[in-house]
Every structure is written in structure tokens, then in C-alpha cells.
């Protein structure tokens, strides 16, 4: 009797290349081949995505826009258009969900898919990944890089090295060998302080990290250290979680070009946030039990305030008024301040089943209104319709 060899675990990490830039180029093909920076133009704006052409000059995401423009003055700055990014992202995830039943979104432009046992031959997972890449390219016009390996950690490292527009299929059983020559910083969740400690101990590569004495790791980093060494050996049992569990919150925030003191303006921005969060919740058939407000003063003091509701919220109206009263509460507790950043979040998400009350005429009305607005925007674009109180230009 022979024991059949087990089906090897194959996890793929899909990562859209310079996602925001790629979407902007679809909207405006003249941007192709040009150095492009997606982000605001205000004095405090940061780069959301830099095209490869701009990266050559040292531009990268999360960099202050002013600095990026000093490095690459000829770059074209495009304000972000999140509605388009979300639409593209939904298309991307839909393709992946047809490739595998187990897909976990980790952002607009990134997702893990469990491809274990997909296809008949040993290269089934790779073929499935290639097919998904072709569909994303053909149907959405976007380039996506893929890393395939025996674990999430290694798949993520591989997708990074597959960029741009490539596939890196780490051979079955070859995860540790693949990681061994790579520098420490390539390992996800290895922070700069841990890297510094390891470098001080003479460790330069993931292969060296993998061979460190566990007692030393435990003494130096605690149990986190053992985890690092295990992942440096390519051992990471964390499964791909289906999306039903993955998304735990929806939030929006904006940093103002100039600090805002006008309460009406702040409420308008919260309403605009509520509009987007509400649309997200409705599209994914979820409701929020908790609404959080985030506000930052000019001195960078940051506050968060939250309120939890017995009846989970979903309508723009509910989210917006919850945000407004949290803001009032914050100002009462902390005094009125100019605001540098304001954000609204929906957390504690539950399934979309709302207990109706005898006096819910108003609620049902708001829900119908939201649904109608969502449909119009779906058909005619996000700018087709705005509520009277919401500011039209939000990214200034």
C-alpha cells in the first residue's frame, strides 16, 4: 500500500502594479510613459502612488508631495479618484474570486488566494494565477504581479520580487531556499528596530535569521522572535481567510491643506465621508454597530471618539449624524481647535439585517434614498449627484 503524497499548499499573493497610477492612465492615456504622482497638491499632501518613471527619481508612496516634486519637478500630479479605484478594485477581486473560493482582500490592490489543489496537474496553481492575470489585464487593463508559494509570507515576498507585471512561482518545498539570500527588510512584519538589533548581531540575510539560536531569539525579542525565525524559514501556517471575516472596518479620512475651524465645513466633510462609507457598507451588505471619529489638531495631537449603537447603522444620514455628534462631544471635552485631519470610521460590522421598529418610516425613507443615490452613481459616476450639504471638491 502506498500513501498518496499530500497536495502541496499553494498560496498566491496578487498585487496590482502602481494601482492608482494605472487607473489614472486608463482614464487619461497621455499619462502613459510619464512620471506620475497620485496625491493632493496641498502643502501637506503625501504621495499615494508614484509611477515607475517617477520612482527612478527617488519618489515613493507616503513621501511628502513637496519633497517628491523637488526630486522630480517634471512629474504630473493627479488628484486621487477613489471612486474609480474602488470600481477597479471590485473588478480585480471579482476575477480572483472566480479563480479560488478562498480569497482574502488586504486592500484595494492586494489579495491572497488559496490555490491549493487547483487544476489537475502540478502546475495547476500557476496556470490559475496566469489565467487570472490575463483576465485582469484583458478586462480591466491593469497589470498585476503574483507570488506563489507555500505560505502567505513567502507569497508576499515573491510578489514583490515579481514586479513589475510578473509571476514568481517558488517551487514546492523551496520556500526556505528562496528566502535565504534575501535581506532582512524583505520579510513582512520585521520592523526597523528588529532589523537594527539583528544587524548589530551580524545577521544580514533571512537565511542567517532562520538559523539563529531560538534561545537567543526568545531572550532578545520574546516570542515574536521565534515567529520571525520561523517565517524566515518559510514556515507560516496562517490560512487565507475568506473575505466574509476579513473586512472589519470601513473608514475615510482627509488631511486639510489648511487647518479648518469652521464647524459647518467639518460637518460637511464628515457627511462626505459618511456618504462613501455608507455606499461601501451597502454594497457589501453590512452594517456598523460602532462609529468612530478621528480628529487631529495642528500640533498633531490626535483624538478618536467612538459610539456604539444597539441598532447597527448603514444609511448616510445615520453615519453622518453619529459623526457630527461625536465631533460635538470632542469639542465639548477638549475645547474647540482648528482641525488638521478629520476621519470617520465604521467598525464592529455585522450582517445586513436591521430590526425594524414601529416608527421606522423615516429610516426606510433614508434607505430608499441611499439606494437610489448609489444606483445613480453606479450608472453615471460618483460626481453625478451630490447631497446639498456635501462639498463637491473634497480633495482640496
Amino acid at each position, binding site marked *: 500500500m502506498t500513501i498518496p503524497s499530500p497536495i502541496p499548499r499553494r498560496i498566491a499573493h496578487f498585487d496590482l502594479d502602481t494601482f492608482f497610477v494605472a487607473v489614472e492612465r486608463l482614464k487619461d492615456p497621455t499619462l502613459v510613459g510619464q512620471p506620475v504622482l497620485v496625491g493632493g497638491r496641498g502643502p501637506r499632501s503625501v504621495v499615494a502612488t508614484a509611477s515607475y518613471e517617477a520612482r527612478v527619481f527617488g519618489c515613493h508612496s507616503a513621501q511628502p508631495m513637496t519633497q517628491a516634486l523637488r526630486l522630480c519637478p517634471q512629474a504630473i500630479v493627479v488628484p486621487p479618484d477613489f471612486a474609480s479605484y474602488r470600481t477597479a478594485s471590485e473588478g480585480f477581486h471579482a476575477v480572483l474570486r472566480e479563480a479560488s473560493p478562498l480569497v482574502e482582500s488586504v486592500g484595494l490592490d492586494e489579495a491572497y488566494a488559496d490555490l491549493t489543489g487547483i487544476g489537475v496537474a502540478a502546475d495547476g496553481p500557476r496556470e490559475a494565477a496566469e489565467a487570472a492575470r490575463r483576465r485582469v489585464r484583458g478586462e480591466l487593463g491593469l497589470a498585476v504581479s503574483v507570488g506563489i508559494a507555500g505560505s502567505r509570507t513567502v507569497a508576499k515576498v515573491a510578489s514583490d520580487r515579481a514586479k513589475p507585471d510578473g509571476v514568481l512561482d517558488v517551487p514546492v518545498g523551496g520556500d526556505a531556499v528562496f528566502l535565504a539570500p534575501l535581506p532582512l527588510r524583505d520579510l513582512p512584519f520585521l520592523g526597523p528596530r528588529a532589523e537594527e538589533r539583528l544587524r548589530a548581531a551580524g545577521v544580514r540575510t533571512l537565511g542567517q535569521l532562520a538559523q539563529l539560536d531560538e534561545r537567543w531569539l526568545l531572550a532578545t525579542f520574546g516570542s515574536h522572535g521565534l515567529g520571525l525565525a520561523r517565517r524566515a524559514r518559510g514556515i507560516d501556517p496562517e490560512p487565507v481567510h475568506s473575505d466574509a471575516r476579513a473586512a472589519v472596518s470601513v473608514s475615510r479620512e482627509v488631511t486639510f491643506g489648511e487647518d479648518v475651524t469652521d464647524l459647518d465645513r467639518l460637518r460637511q466633510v464628515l457627511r462626505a465621508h459618511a456618504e462613501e462609507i455608507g455606499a461601501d457598507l451597502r454594497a457589501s451588505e453590512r452594517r456598523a454597530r460602532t462609529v468612530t471619529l478621528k480628529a487631529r489638531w495642528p500640533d498633531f495631537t490626535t483624538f478618536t471618539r467612538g459610539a456604539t449603537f444597539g441598532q447597527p447603522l448603514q444609511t448616510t444620514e445615520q453615519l453622518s449624524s453619529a459623526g457630527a455628534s461625536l465631533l460635538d462631544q470632542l469639542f465639548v471635552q477638549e475645547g474647540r481647535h482648528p482641525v488638521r485631519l478629520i476621519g470617520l470610521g465604521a467598525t464592529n460590522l455585522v450582517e445586513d*439585517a436591521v430590526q425594524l421598529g*414601529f416608527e421606522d418610516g423615516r429610516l426606510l425613507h433614508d434607505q430608499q434614498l441611499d439606494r437610489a443615490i448609489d444606483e445613480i452613481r453606479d450608472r453615471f459616476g460618483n460626481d453625478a449627484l451630490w447631497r446639498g450639504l456635501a462639498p463637491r471638491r473634497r480633495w482640496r
Partner: protein
Amino acid sequence: MDTTIQQGELLTIQQGDLLFAVGRALGSVPQKNAQPLLTCVLLEADKDGLRVTGTDLDVTTSVLVPCAVRTPVRMAVPARHFHEVIRKLPRGAVTLAQAGSQCEVRYGDGKGWSKFHTQPADDFPRVPELKAASKITIEGDALARMIERSAYATSDEPARPQLNGVLVHGTDKFVTFVATDGHRLSRSTRKGAFGDLTKDGVIVPARVLSSVSKFASEATSPVELRIADGKNHIGFATQVGEYQVQVFARLIEGPYPNYEQVIPKDNPRALTLSRTDLVEAVDIVASHADSNTQQIRFSLRGGKFSVSSATADFGAGEQSVEAEYAGDDMEIGYNARYLLQILRNIPTERIVFRLKTSLSAGIVEPVGALPQADEELLCLIMPLRLPDAVG
């Protein structure tokens, strides 16, 4: 037995009588309070007997039990501590005595004694006087039933205090107890003349009713409800054997919402079925429901009825239930917990759901007469909106 009066002796009482009084009064004593006096029960002895009173300022319970009083007295003893000891004492006579600032309990025919610190009784809150009160009289068991059939539907959210209580109102022909939390409603009615009832009625805190229903079910005389003229206080009084029990409470300020307008008049779809069958199905299927929304689904298709539930976290389940239904196919969602509470408080075996749409209030009613033919019951439940419901 030594009959000489010893120093400081106040009264002699049966352990069982004392325990009943202290136990009932304890129900109104707050667990913790910054004022030590409020964690005490007040003991008052006079020619009528021993009166034991506990209060949290909102609700006051006072019980008068027979005893042989030697010296009239008023003193306050720590409620929980006192109850704890009295509970353990052997049956038979116990004697309360004053020993300095302490209250001494002598028991077991001189076998033992227990001493408690007392608090100055003069500051103990007065029992509210119900001046020029209007009066309503209801048999104890009927009162207990009406409380049981309504109080579960009250809300505990402080945002709408009116809904934290049960509306007691009526005319000279009936009395009605109504409670709702905005999602479900229960209306329990008893026909007859019960006294000075008005249409506006009074809102009695649910908390009070839970202690009232306890003694109402064991009352040996009808329970008398007295409502103070300003409609700010209510008192419940009855006899439990030799004991006189009284509960006073602050009423919740009205007006109560006009609940009658939410009772649907034209719900054409009738679903008739066995209550126990439905309770069983809902109870099993709800194990798969979201722990938060408790959502279950009624499916009425082609004359067949089933209850189902499905969640990403807890799997799925479905059970069909024999039912009579003639109407268009429909699906409607409910909170299983709300539904079970309603079903468990309907006393008949056959029940009927009267429905209109999957978004509107449904009526749940007993089919046929209640065990007490002069009583009626009507429940309403609002659905859970299902994202994908049909009908």
C-alpha cells in the same frame, strides 16, 4: 422558658416571619450606595407588629409581620448582612433587643446571639404617602399574569424612559397592560370593573413590576393599586397570609406613545400553526443565527412554511413546520429572541400570525379563548429587514 424581660428587649418574633419581611424588603435595597443608610432595612415595631422597609429611593418595599412588641422602636440595620444571618437561624422565636447602638438578635432559646451595627433611623427616607389616591383592585393571580404577559416587551434603553415601563390603563369595563420597546409590543387585557382607571393611565417601571409579580402570585387578597393624585407615585398593597406587603414606586412621566396607531388594521395574510412546534423550530434554527441580530427567516412558499437561518460564522439550519397559510409566497425575517419571548408568553397551543409585507408589523395572537375567558392578548412584532427578501 425564661419569661422575664431582659434588658433592652424590644420584641419577639418567629424566625420565618422575620425572614419573609427582611427578604422582601431586601428586594428594594441597592447593592451598593454611597449612603450607608440606603443599604439598610428600617425596622419599626409598634402595636401593629414589625414593619421592615427597604428602598433605593425609586422603589420602596415595606412588609408588616406579626410579633409581640415590648418596646416600640425604629432602627436601621445593614440589609444584606442582617438577612444573611436571619436566613441561617434555627426556626422558632427570636428576640430583638437594643444593646447600646447595636441591634442584638437572640435565638435558639438563649443558645446564641448576634449583634449588628445600626444606623440612625431618623434620616431613613419616608415611605411616600399616597394622598387622595385613585384606587384600582385586581386579583393577585390575574395581576401576576398580566405583568408576565407584558413586562418582557419593555425597553431598557434610557433614551426613551416612557418605554422602560408598562402602561396600565383602562375604563370601567376593562384594564389593559401594554409594553413595547419600539420593535415588539404586548397588550394584555382583562375585562371587568377594577376601579379608577383612565385612558391615559400610568406608566409603571418594569423593575417594580418584577417584584410586584412575585408577591401578587402568592397574594391571599386582591392587590390594591393606589395612584397618588399628582400621578407621580403608585403603591401596591396586598396580604400574603398574615403578612401585609406594600410596594411604592415613582411612576414614569408620560405621555405614553399612542400605541394603538401602530396596531395594523388590515393584515390579510394569516399563518396559523402550533405554538410548541414553532418554538421548537425557532429555538433550534436560531443556533445558527448571528449572535447580534438573532436573525431567522420565515419562508412561505407554495403553502409550505419553514424557519431557517444561515451565517458565515455559525453555519445554517432549516426546519419545516406544519401550518395553515393561504396567500402569496413571502419571506420575512425576525429576531429569534423577540419571537421566542412572545411565543412563550401566549397561553394557547394554536396561534396565528397576521402579516402584510416583509417590512411591516405582524400581529401574533392566540387562536381561541385564553384559559381565563375574560382575558385577551395581542402581540406585535416588527420584522428584521432581510437584504434579499421576497414578497
